[in-house]
């Protein structure tokens, strides 16, 4: 399998604090790759480097033959990277269907399009596709609701629908089940699994919850103090003494 995303020798310091040091990581096409690590390990910094929010001091980030460094967030999305946030980021004042329509328009018409004369509701190509995706995540009957009134789990579903409608090559998931009830967590895991199987989208998951990580990931990288300390299949990671050391100071996982 070929690597879709390659991170090479990335370093990032904030003043005297070395947030990322010599990070090397490669995510294979079609895989589900989890990045875990204790608080302050550099997971969020790494994610912010991937999406163009932070520029690393040294190193390279290559995605599908394109360097992501120096690109604006919207340009990174346009090359095929979508992102789900820790707190679902949706257009709260708009209806569900409009949320998905915006994302559908963005993937069809690009970063800027001055189409001020045609009506959105008469563009069947866009509305049909948006409804199809809402149906896929089970939100079609709520399509005219204002999205800020949704539950946390439904907001996550909506956010996922907005990402999926763009048919991304890579989906970044930042703690996709943070702050959710157990029931919402499980249904989100099921949804993510189903999406993975149906669409074959490569996913990178950053997560605290080991239940989520071990249910989804095919490969896990453990970060500690800004460096990957080990990488492997879930079973291998579970038993690795270095991981237990990093997480629990030597206690057993």
């Amino acid at each position: 399998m070929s690597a879709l995303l390659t991170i090479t020798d990335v370093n990032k310091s904030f003043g005297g604090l070395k947030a990322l040091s010599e990070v090397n990581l490669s995510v294979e096409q079609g895989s589900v790759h989890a990045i875990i690590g204790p608080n302050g390990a550099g997971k969020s910094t790494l994610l912010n480097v991937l999406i163009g929010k932070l520029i690393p001091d040294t190193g390279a980030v290559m995605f599908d033959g394109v360097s992501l460094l120096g690109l604006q967030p919207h340009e990174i999305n346009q090359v095929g990277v979508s992102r789900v946030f820790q707190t679902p980021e949706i257009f709260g004042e708009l209806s569900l269907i409009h949320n998905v329509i915006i994302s559908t328009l963005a993937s069809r018409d690009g970063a800027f399009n001055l189409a001020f004369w045609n009506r959105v509701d008469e563009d069947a190509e866009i509305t049909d596709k948006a409804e199809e995706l809402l149906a896929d995540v089970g939100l079609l009957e709520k399509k005219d609701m204002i999205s800020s009134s949704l539950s946390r789990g439904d907001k996550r579903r909506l956010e996922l629908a907005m990402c999926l409608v763009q048919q991304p090559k890579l989906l970044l998931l930042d703690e996709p089940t943070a702050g959710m009830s157990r029931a919402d967590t499980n249904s989100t895991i099921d949804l993510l699994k189903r999406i993975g199987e149906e669409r074959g989208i490569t996913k990178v998951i950053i997560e605290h919850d080991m239940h989520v990580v071990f249910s989804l990931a095919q490969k896990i990288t453990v970060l500690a103090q800004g460096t990957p300390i080990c990488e492997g299949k879930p079973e291998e990671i579970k038993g690795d003494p270095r991981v237990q050391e990093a997480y629990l100071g030597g206690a057993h996982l």
Partner: protein
Amino acid sequence: MNAAIATASSKAQPHAGEAPPNKGADLRNFAIFAVAILSMPLWLQPLGVAYPAFMQKIAIFGTLAIGFNLLFGLTGYLSFGHAAFLGVGSYAAVWSFKLLSMNAVPALIFGTLFGGLFALAIGFISLRRTGIYFSILTLAFAQMAYNLAYSVLTPITNGETALQVVKDDPRVLDAMFGAVGTSSAPVPNLFGMALTGDAGLIGFYFCALLMIGAFYISMRIFRSPFGMMLRAIKTNQQRMRFTGLNPRPYALAVFVVSGMYAGLAGSMMAVVDPLAGAERMQWTASGEVVLMTILGGSGTLIGPVLGAGAIKYFEVKLVEYNKTKLGEIFSFLPDSISDAVVSVSSLFVGGGWHLTLGLIFMLVVIFLPGGIVQGLGKLTSWVRRRTSSSNSASSKSADASQPAE
């Protein structure tokens, strides 16, 4: 204030499912709007304001507010500098009268164009910031424009005397077509049809048709993909960027469109009264359009026009009153009380009408954050509930199915 308005308007949003507007409903509403505006000379009669000067004002400020609402109502960017574009539009129109022709068409075109060009320059810089910093930047630019118009730009603006049309202006186009030679000061016309002076209602219909056109364009923008992106800017710029959309060009584009609306309104002012003064660019004028939009209901199609109408109506009506008139009204009271009542209430009328406007504005923002439009919506749903419950007064289930508000 920005944050307060944002929360208020989100509160005004319905949370239940609501059918989205379709083309048929839009066309019907547009037809109602057009008929209502064009029949103003009839239905404003009982209100005592059916004279052309007042109705022209409604059309002009309505256009200005419709354009302002495209920026503020959709994107949430609160500009405090729209008076600058209004003033620029007026100056451009008067120069068109002086240099080219007394025909209103080139004046409107140049007014709109220059409003847009100024908005492009000011917006390009101001849109680097959001929220209060954006507002302050636009305010600063507008005040600069105002002060420049009074000082170094006097050759263009004619400073305090205001820019006026005089008999000896070149008017190359008019000269070419031999349309000169009147002894009195020339008046703006539409291919020979006079729009001011003895024109009566013609000037009003001219402005009204322009506003109806402006309203139609605004409606198309509201329903378009472009308009949807503008709402996305207001709601969540972070999500917008990570959805592959660049908010900056969208915000700049609507800022320019909004500036063109203001330029158009400014040139309409020049058409109905062919002079342009710098006071048109003062910050109070910028503030007025903000009040109109919020009072009527920002982010709604019709709200800005209602707000413009309401404020101009109060202005005319309250300025009419003075101490003598109030004395007559309260003459039924004993003298000592009547004197006190008159002296207190006189503070709120005449030159002090802004005090009343301020009170009304406070009440609306606190109790009807969605403006007049929200008020009307509440009223119709209340009436509907009253009629439906009186129809089935006996059945308790009908009452129970109506949720308490």
